[in-house]
């Protein structure tokens, strides 16, 4: 089969797979961000129960392979089928795409918790003290003074995390999701042509490099008021 025929036959599917990959990553990173805020605050709170809860969560999801987590959720949920059916959630866990979405969300949520926690601690203590001395409450200080600065500090590592998620999302293919990797595996199984993997590599490369460059631009633009020099 010529390369043109190969691309004609499997190219559209791989592009569809690329969209699935983007969808998986975009949704799970966004939902993970929602998890990370309460988890980071719990980690920094004075309540030992909240702290332990947050620590346990990030420890488990950062210390185990994403693939093992996907297996745990996707295959593990089958064991609780009757229970899941009784509470009307089986449709969710039956679907490999949703299982991956859930696992990726919890996984990136744990990494984002660490990023946000680190960023909050980086914000100078003087900022908090100044806010208190102006009579702001703890919540006001957190929401209006510390968090806006922390989010800015966390932008750069967050960009790295999104890239890691794009790469990590390839494991979805193992549990039959037709993301870019899944579509490529199918194309390889049918054509036995190794070049499909190189086309997939090019697509992943373009996706990651574009994101990296755009993210750098945005980060520079948003943090231009605190940049000390042009370097």
């Amino acid at each position, binding site marked *: 089969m010529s390369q043109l025929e190969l691309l004609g036959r499997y190219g559209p599917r791989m592009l569809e797979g690329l969209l699935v990959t983007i969808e998986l990553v975009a949704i799970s990173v966004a939902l993970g961000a929602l998890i990370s805020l309460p988890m980071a605050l719990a980690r920094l709170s004075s309540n030992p129960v909240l702290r332990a809860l947050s620590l346990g969560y990030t420890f488990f999801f950062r210390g185990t*392979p994403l693939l093992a987590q996907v297996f745990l959720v996707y295959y*593990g949920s089958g064991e609780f089928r009757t229970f899941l059916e009784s509470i009307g959630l089986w449709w969710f866990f039956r679907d490999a795409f949703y299982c991956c979405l859930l696992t990726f969300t919890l996984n990136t949520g744990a990494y984002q918790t660490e990023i946000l926690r680190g960023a909050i601690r980086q914000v100078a203590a003087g900022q908090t003290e100044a806010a208190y001395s102006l009579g702001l409450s703890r919540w006001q200080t957190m929401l209006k003074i510390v968090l806006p600065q922390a989010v800015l500090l966390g932008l750069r590592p967050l960009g790295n995390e999104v890239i890691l998620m794009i790469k990590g999302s*390839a494991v979805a293919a*193992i549990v039959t999701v037709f993301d870019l*990797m899944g579509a490529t595996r199918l194309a390889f199984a049918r054509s036995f042509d*190794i070049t499909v993997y190189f086309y997939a590599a090019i697509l992943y*490369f373009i996706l990651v490099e574009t994101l990296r460059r755009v993210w750098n631009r945005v980060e520079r633009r948003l943090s231009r008021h605190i940049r000390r020099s042009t370097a």
Partner: protein
Amino acid sequence: MGDLLGLLSFGPDGWGDEIAAGTWLTIRLAAATLPFGLALGFVVGLARNANAPWLSVPGNLFATVFRALPELLTLFIVYYGGQYLVQWLVSFFTDTYVEINAFVAGLVALGLVFAAFASEVFLGAFRSIGRGQYEAAAAVGLTPFQAMRLVIVPQLIRYALPGLANLWLVLLKETSLVSIIALNDLLRQTSVAVGATKEPFFFYLVACLIYLAMSIISTFGLVAIERWSERGMKR
């Protein structure tokens, strides 16, 4: 619960010995990948740090590509691509069918990714060592190679260790990908146990806990190494 723990016993009835064998393979694979990845990463870092474009351009390209590709895709390309390549080379001499070793494919793929990220760490470490160090080494008459070995590298290790420690923890988890190319690592052995016992949740949880334990033990070791690397520094 007693039934479940019985499944983990060693011997013909339990899966304990299979899972232990898988854990051992995971450790061996990670430990074998480390020196390869470190050496390649150091060379690539050195190339990227060079002034000559014929060194820095390929170095940067290598690092950019292998940091951007999913580890799983790199593994497939090395495994299937390596198979084609070896078969093609062998076909010049004989007609026999050779099969590429999954362990070696895993080692090479994980090593390439490790090297790409390690080169980034080394590059940062090179840049944090002042020019004066090179100049002083040259001034006392050391050759560039001696300067590298006696002056730069001992300091480099200290700067690079935290980053490399992180990469080791990442590598330990990424070995799980080789289970897909039918290498009997911890995750694959767990899947075999799941297939036979129909207890997916329990077994995958056990696998996760073993990965966690390996990370914790590594962390202790890494802290010790870091302390050793700072033995000459003022506290």
